[in-house]
C-alpha cells in the first residue's frame, strides 16, 4: 500500500492562480496562471497521466497581464476566466475577462513537450467584464454546475452578476450589489454556493463573511469577526448545504453552520502562518485541504462535521476473505477528526490548493515560486472511506 510519491512540476514564473478544469471529468487537468511583470504571462494546462505518473503540459499565452485569479467554466471546458493586472506606465488596474482556449492545443501538445518555447498559442478573448465603474476585480466565479452563462465578479466593494450572451461574446451586468459601511470593504474572495438552486453567494471582506441572496441581491447573513484577521478564502461543503469553511490570517481554518453564526462549528489551528486557501473534496466532504504561507499543505479529515459522520455502512456479508474482515473491524471504530497528512514539498508560500474535478482522490497545490505539486489522498484512508 505504498503511496505514490508526489509529482512536482515547476513553472518558470511565479504563480498564484490555480484551478481544476471544472468541466473536464475524464482527464485530470489543472490550469495555472502565472504572474510576471516583465514577460508574457502564461496559462499552463497541466495534464496528469495517472497511470504513468507523468505530467503533460501545454502553455497558452495570456498577454493581457499577470494573472491573479483563474476559473474554468463548468459547462465548456475550453472556456475560462481570469482576473489580471493591467499595468500601464503609472497605473495598475485589475481587470477580468472570459477566454477561450484554442481548439487545437490538445492535439499538438503531446508530440513535442517543449513546444512552449517554439510557438505557444494564444488565448482567444471572448469578452471583457467591464469594470471601469466598479474598481479592481478580485475574483470571478462561475455558476456552479450551471450552463456556463452566469458569472459573478467581485470588484472592490461590488458584487456583480453577469450574463454571458451570444456564445459568450458579450457580458451584461444583470444585477449588482454594493457593500457599504465603515471599514475595509474590499472583497478579498467569494464562493458561489452550489446549494439552494445556486441562489446564494458568500463573500469575504476584511474579517467578515457575508452571505448574499442573488435573487434580491441582498445580504442574508454576516459573520462579523469570523477570523481574527483578514479572511482569505471560503468554500462550501458540497454535501451539506449550510456548512461553510473559511480560512484567514489568524492561521485558523473555521467551519461554520450559517444557521448559527455565533460560533464556528469547529476550528483547526494547524498552520503556522496565514491560510490562503481551503477546499472541500467534491465527493467526500470530510476531506478538507488547506494551503498556507508556512509552505505547507494540510489534508484534514473532518469526519464529525461531514455528511458521512459514521462512514459508509457496509453489510458484513459482502466481505469474504479474512483480510478484509480485519480491515473492516478497524474501520468500524468511528474515525476521529484528524490531520491526515502534512505535505511539505513546497519551499515557498502556498497560495492555492485545488481538488481534481476528475479524480476525487487527487489534488494539486501551487506555491509562489511556481511549483505545482500533485498529491493523492493516502490509499489507506481512501479504502477506509470507500469500504
Amino acid at each position: 500500500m505504498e503511496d505514490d510519491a508526489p509529482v512536482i512540476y515547476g513553472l518558470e514564473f511565479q504563480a498564484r492562480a490555480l484551478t481544476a478544469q471544472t468541466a473536464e471529468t475524464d482527464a485530470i487537468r489543472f490550469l495555472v496562471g502565472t504572474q510576471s511583470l516583465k514577460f508574457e504571462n502564461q496559462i499552463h494546462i497541466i495534464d496528469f497521466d495517472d497511470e504513468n505518473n507523468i505530467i503533460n503540459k501545454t502553455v497558452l499565452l495570456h498577454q493581457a497581464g499577470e494573472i491573479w485569479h483563474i476559473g474554468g467554466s463548468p459547462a465548456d471546458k475550453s472556456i475560462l476566466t481570469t482576473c489580471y493586472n493591467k499595468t500601464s506606465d503609472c497605473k495598475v488596474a485589475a481587470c477580468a475577462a472570459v477566454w477561450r482556449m484554442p481548439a487545437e492545443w490538445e492535439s499538438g501538445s503531446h508530440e513535442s513537450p517543449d513546444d512552449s518555447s517554439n510557438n505557444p498559442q494564444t488565448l482567444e478573448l471572448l469578452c471583457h467584464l467591464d469594470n471601469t465603474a466598479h474598481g479592481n476585480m478580485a475574483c470571478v466565479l462561475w455558476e456552479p454546475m450551471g450552463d456556463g452563462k452566469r458569472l459573478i465578479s467581485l470588484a472592490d466593494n461590488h458584487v456583480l452578476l453577469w450574463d454571458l450572451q451570444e456564445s459568450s461574446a458579450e457580458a451584461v451586468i444583470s444585477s449588482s450589489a454594493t457593500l457599504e459601511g465603515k471599514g475595509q470593504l474590499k472583497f478579498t474572495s467569494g464562493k458561489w454556493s452550489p446549494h439552494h438552486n445556486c441562489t446564494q453567494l458568500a463573500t469575504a471582506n476584511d474579517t467578515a463573511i457575508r452571505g448574499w441572496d442573488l435573487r434580491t441581491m441582498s445580504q442574508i447573513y454576516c459573520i462579523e469577526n469570523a477570523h481574527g484577521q483578514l479572511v482569505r478564502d471560503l468554500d462550501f461543503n458540497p454535501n451539506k448545504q449550510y456548512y461553510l469553511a473559511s480560512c484567514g490570517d489568524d492561521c485558523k481554518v473555521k467551519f461554520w453552520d450559517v444557521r448559527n453564526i455565533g460560533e464556528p462549528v469547529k476550528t483547526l489551528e494547524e498552520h503556522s502562518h496565514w491560510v490562503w486557501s481551503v477546499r472541500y473534496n467534491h465527493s467526500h466532504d470530510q476531506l478538507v485541504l488547506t494551503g498556507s504561507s508556512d509552505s505547507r499543505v494540510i489534508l484534514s479529515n473532518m469526519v464529525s462535521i461531514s455528511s458521512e459522520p459514521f462512514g459508509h455502512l457496509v453489510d458484513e456479508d459482502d466481505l469474504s476473505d479474512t483480510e478484509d474482515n480485519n480491515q473492516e473491524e478497524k474501520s468500524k471504530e468511528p474515525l476521529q477528526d484528524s490531520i491526515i497528512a502534512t505535505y511539505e514539498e513546497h519551499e515557498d508560500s502556498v497560495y492555492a490548493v485545488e481538488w481534481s474535478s476528475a479524480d476525487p482522490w487527487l489534488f494539486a497545490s501551487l506555491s509562489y515560486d511556481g511549483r505545482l505539486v500533485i498529491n493523492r489522498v493516502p490509499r489507506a484512508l481512501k479504502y477506509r472511506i470507500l469500504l
Partner: protein
Amino acid sequence: MDADLSASAATDVTPPDSDPARKRRVHGMLKLYYGLNEEGKPDQPESLDPCDINGPHFDPEVFLNKLRKECSLTELMDQESCMVKQIRSLDSDMQTLVYENYNKFISATDTIRKMKNDFKKMEDEMDCLSTNMAAITEFSARISGTLQDQHTQITKLSGVHTLLRKLQFLFELPARLNKCLELQAYAQAVSSHRRARCVLQQYSHMPSFRGIQDDCHAIMDQLAQQLRQKFRDGGSSAKDLSECVELLLQLDEPAEELCDKFLSHAQSRLETDLLGLEAELREPVSVSGPKATVDPAGSSTSKAGEGPAGLTPSTSGTLLSPASRTDILEFIDRGCNEFVSSLCLVIASYQELFVNRPQEGDLACKNIPQMASGKLHSFVDTLAARYFTLVERRIQEEKGVGDNSLLVRALDRFHRRLQAVSKLLPGSAVPSQGTEIVVRAARERIRQYLSALQTFYLDSLTDVRQALAAPRLSVGGAGVAGGRGLLGGESSVKDASPSLPDLLVSLSASILNQIKSVLASVHLFTAKDITFSNKPYFKGEFCSEGVREGLVVSFVKFVCQSSRQFCESAGDRGGTTPPALLLLLSRLCLDYETSTISYILTLTDEQFLVQHHSPVTAVTALCSEAREAAQKLLNHYVKVQGLIISQMLRKSVETRDWVNTIEPRNVRAVMKRVVEDTTSIDVQVGLLYEEGVRKAHSSDSSKRTFSVYSSSRQQARYAPSYTPSAPMDTNLLSNIHKLFSERIDIFSPVEFNKVSVLTGIIKISLKTFLECVRLRTFGRYGLQQIQVDCHYLQMYLWRFVSDENLVHFLLDEIVGSAAHRCLDPAPMEQSVIEVICERG
C-alpha cells in the same frame, strides 16, 4: 571384767523398775522439760543399731562383744574411761533434777493446803447469798402479782390513745389539706394524704370515714387541679415544674399524660427561645436589604476593614455583610445559652422525673422509663431540628470571609454545647447532626474562600491592568536609549511607570499572602482546642479533599484557567488584554511552575498534615498545567505583539501607491516605529525574562548587513532578471537558497527567554511584510524604498534575535520579492542606502 563394769554402769543408768518404753517417755519428758530437742541427733527410727549406745535398741551384750572383738586393749581402756566420765556426768545431772523436782513438789503441796482453807470460807458466803436471793425472788413475785392488773390497763389506755390520735389526724385531714392548699404547701398536703389514703381506703365502708375520704378526694382533686393549672401556666420555673410533676405522679396521675404535658410545656418555653432566635435572624434582613442596595460601599468597607488582610473589598459589599446586627458568635451564644441550656435542663429534669426515678409500687409495672425516653427522644429531635435549621440559616448568612475565627469559635461553641446533650441523652442523633452542620459549614467556608481568592485574583489583575494602562505611554519610551540616539526624542519618560517586575512581585506576593491568610483562617477549623477538630472529617477529608484539593489546587487551576482564557477570549483581534499583562501572567505562571505551586502545596500539607486517603492532584500535574498556561500566554503575547507590528507594516504597504512613489530620501517613519516598538518590547520582556541564548554571531554583526546587501551581490542576484534569456535563474537561486536554509515556522511556540520571544515577534512581523509586498506592484522608487527600509530594519533588528541569519533571510526575501514585483527593477546603490539609513 570390763563387761561387768559397763554392765553395772548400764544398770545404774537405767532405773531398775522401768521397761525401755517407760524409760523413753521419762527421757522425753525430761527433754521437754529442759527444752532440749533431738536436733543434734540423726533421726530416731534409724538408730536400729544395737551398738548405738543412745539408740533405743541398744543391746549391751552385743555392744560389749563388739568392743571386745574389735578393739585393742588401749582402746578399750580409753573407751572405758570415757564411758565412766559420761556416766558420772549423767549421774550428777540426775541428782540435780531429782532435787529440783523435790523442791517443786514441796511448794505445790503447800499451795494446795492453803487453797483448801480458802475454799471453805467461800462456801459459807455462797450459802448466804443463795438464801438472800431466794428471799428477793419471793418478794418480787409478790409485787408483780399485785401490779398485774394495773399494767394491762395502762397498755390498753396507751393503745386507745394512739388510735385516737390517728382518728384525730383523719378527722382533721380535710381541714389540714385545705390549709395546705391555701398555703400552697402542696408537698405537705400530698404526703399527708398519702399517709391517710390506705386507712381511708380500708375503712371506707364506715360512713364517717367515707365522708372524710370523700372530702379528702375532693380536696386532692382540687389540689391536683391546681397543680395541673400551675403546670399549664407558663410562668413557673423548671424546678417548680418538676416538683409539680413529682407530686402529680404521687397522686397517681397517668405518667404518659404528664410526660406529654411536661414536654409540651417545655416545648412552649423552648419555642419562645427559638422564636427569639428566629426573630433575630429575620429582623435585620429587612433592614439591611434595602440598605445594601442604597449604600453598598459604605457598609461593606467597614466590614472589610476588619478582615485580616482586607479580603475582597468589592465582593463583601454585595454579600450583605451582617455588620449591622449581632455577629454569629453572639447568635450562637444566645442559642446555646437560651435554647441548648434550657433544653439540657428540660432533658435533665425530665429524666430525673420520669426516666431515672426509683421505681416503686405499681408505677414500676407501667414501664414508664421506656415510654418516657421514647417521648423525650422525639421531642428533642424535633426541637433540635428546628434549632439546627435556624443555625444553618444563620451560618449561611455568614458570607463575609473576613474573620474566620469568629465563625470557628461560634461553631466550636455550638458543637461543644451539643456534647452536653449527647452526655445527657446518649442515644440521640442530635450531636451527630450538629457535627454534620459543622462539616457543612466548613465545606461552605472552603467554597467561599475559594471564590474569595478567585475574586481577589481577578481584582488584583484589574489593578495590575490599571497600573499598566495608566502610564502606559512611558513604557514604550523606556528602553530606546540604546537606539543610538536616532530615536532619542521621546525616551525621557522613564521613571513614571511602575516597572513590570515590581508589579509581578507585588502581585505574586499579594496572592501568596492571600493564600496564606486563607490557609491560616481555614486552619482554625483544625486547631487542637476546637472540639470538632478530632472528628474524622476534619482529620481526613477536610484536609485533603477540602483544603488541599478544593481550595489550593482549585485556585491554582483557576489561575491557569483564567490565564488561558486571556489567550482565547481576548484572542483574535489582539484583544483588550494589554500585552504587558499577558507577559506578566506568563511569568507568574512560570514562577508558579518552578516554585510557587510546590511551595504552597508543601505548606498546605505541612499545616494540615494531610493524609491522602483519596488520590490527590500531584504537584507535577499542577506544575505542568501551569507551565502549559505560561507557554500559552507567552505564545499569545508574541502573537499579539507580532500582530501589532504586523498591522503597522501591513497598513504601510497596503495604503501606499508603490508605482508612483518618489525617490526615497529617508527611511519611512513606520520602520522607525517598528524598531522603536521592538526595542520597547525587548525592554519589557527583558524585565521579566532572562536573556536566553543566541547563536554565536560575528563580532561585527552590524557590518555584516552591508555584506549581505553589498551591491555586488545584489547585482549578481538581480542581474538575471534583467536579461530576458534566462527567466528561471532567479527562482533557481532563491530555491537553492531555501533548500539550504531551514524551514521557518512563523507562529511557533517560543521558549521562556527574551531572545526567543523577540525572535518570534520579529518573525511574524517580517513575514507579514513579505506577504504584503508580494501582493503589490512596485515602481522603481518603490523598490528602492523597500531596499532602504529593509536595510534599516537589518541594522537594528539583528541584535534582538537568536539567529541573525533569520532576519537576513527574511529581509532578503522581502527585497527579492519586491524586485520581482517591480515594473522597473533598478536597485539603489548600496552606498546611497547606507547614507540614507545612517541619516535616519
